[in-house]
């Protein structure tokens, strides 16, 4: 079972709540994903807070744990303030820390990320940093008090799937005791299975499910793939070989000529 900041989680799929065609489709996707953690955000609202209120109630009814994010923040101060405001609204110390460093790639600003992580852990936040697969940055994040790491595997929303499997493999080997969650870049269930086979602890998805023709069914497909990948990792897989090896024993084979 997976443990994130002392909380035990059965499902290894974390689901984003954005970009679904309707609240009903979102609710269906969350249920069929089996996910126990969903990511949410905070935004300005002019309608007296009524839209936010409806969304707040929807999430509450789903009975899932909430992981608020700092999406869209480009500076440390912005991200820290957003985290504090999220704690006020959602009554949780959990925060998905995201500081965008580049407009086109939405690549995390890893320097700001480390600084903000240090500030937030100092204020009793439990930080889930959205980071790259850079080992040195990951080390700094752990030093800053992060007990979970969330590397991208490709740019957010790109659906490209893992672009650097050796880097992800190295990260797994380097941090055997830290829960690792691939956040961003997954496009299809086989991508999710691939990172789970590397020994990753969970996957955070949004666009791959929300943007599917049938988000509910895609959520179920991802859940199955993630479970399969995790089971395969724990069962111990064969390494690829250069030569063919007959699967049927040769000993005792009849000789007809």
């Amino acid at each position, binding site marked *: 079972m997976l443990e994130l900041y002392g909380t035990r989680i059965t499902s290894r799929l974390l689901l*984003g*709540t*954005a*970009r*679904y065609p309707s609240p009903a489709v*979102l609710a269906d996707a969350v249920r069929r994903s089996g996910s126990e953690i969903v*990511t*949410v*955000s*905070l*935004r*300005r*609202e*002019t309608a*007296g*807070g*009524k*839209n*936010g*209120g409806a*969304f*707040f109630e929807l*999430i509450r009814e789903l009975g899932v744990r909430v992981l*608020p*994010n700092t*999406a869209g923040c480009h500076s440390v*101060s912005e991200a820290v*303030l*957003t985290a*504090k*405001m*999220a704690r*006020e*609204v*959602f009554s949780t110390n959990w925060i998905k820390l995201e500081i965008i460093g580049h407009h086109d790639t939405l690549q995390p600003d890893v320097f700001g990320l480390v600084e903000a992580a240090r500030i937030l852990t100092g204020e009793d936040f439990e930080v889930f940093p959205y980071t790259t697969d850079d080992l040195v940055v990951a080390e700094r994040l752990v030093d800053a008090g992060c007990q979970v790491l969330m590397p991208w595997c490709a740019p*957010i929303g790109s659906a490209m799937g893992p672009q650097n499997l050796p880097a992800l493999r190295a990260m797994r080997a380097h941090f055997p005791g830290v829960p690792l969650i691939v956040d961003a870049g997954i496009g299809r269930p086989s991508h999710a299975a691939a990172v789970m086979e590397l020994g990753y602890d969970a996957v955070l998805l*949004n*666009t791959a499910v929300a943007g599917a023709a049938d988000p509910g069914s895609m959520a179920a497909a991802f859940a199955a793939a993630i479970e399969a990948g995790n089971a395969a990792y724990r069962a111990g897989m064969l390494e690829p070989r250069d030569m063919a090896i007959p699967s049927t024993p040769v000993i005792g084979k009849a000789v007809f000529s």
Partner: protein
Amino acid sequence: MTLIVNGEMLEMSAATLSELLLALEYEGEWLATAVNGELVHREIRGAFRLSDGDRVEILSPMQGG
């Protein structure tokens, strides 16, 4: 008094943050407020006095990835 509320310049007579929320018809336990870049907890909105030129942010939950 001129306030900048969620990036919009408004002429308001509200003396406190609570009065401002009331005047703009914001209500709900899911709102978070900040003034001039600092969080203002919901418990102290009633006592939090606003000044001319204050930048007020009022945020509420939204879908996110």
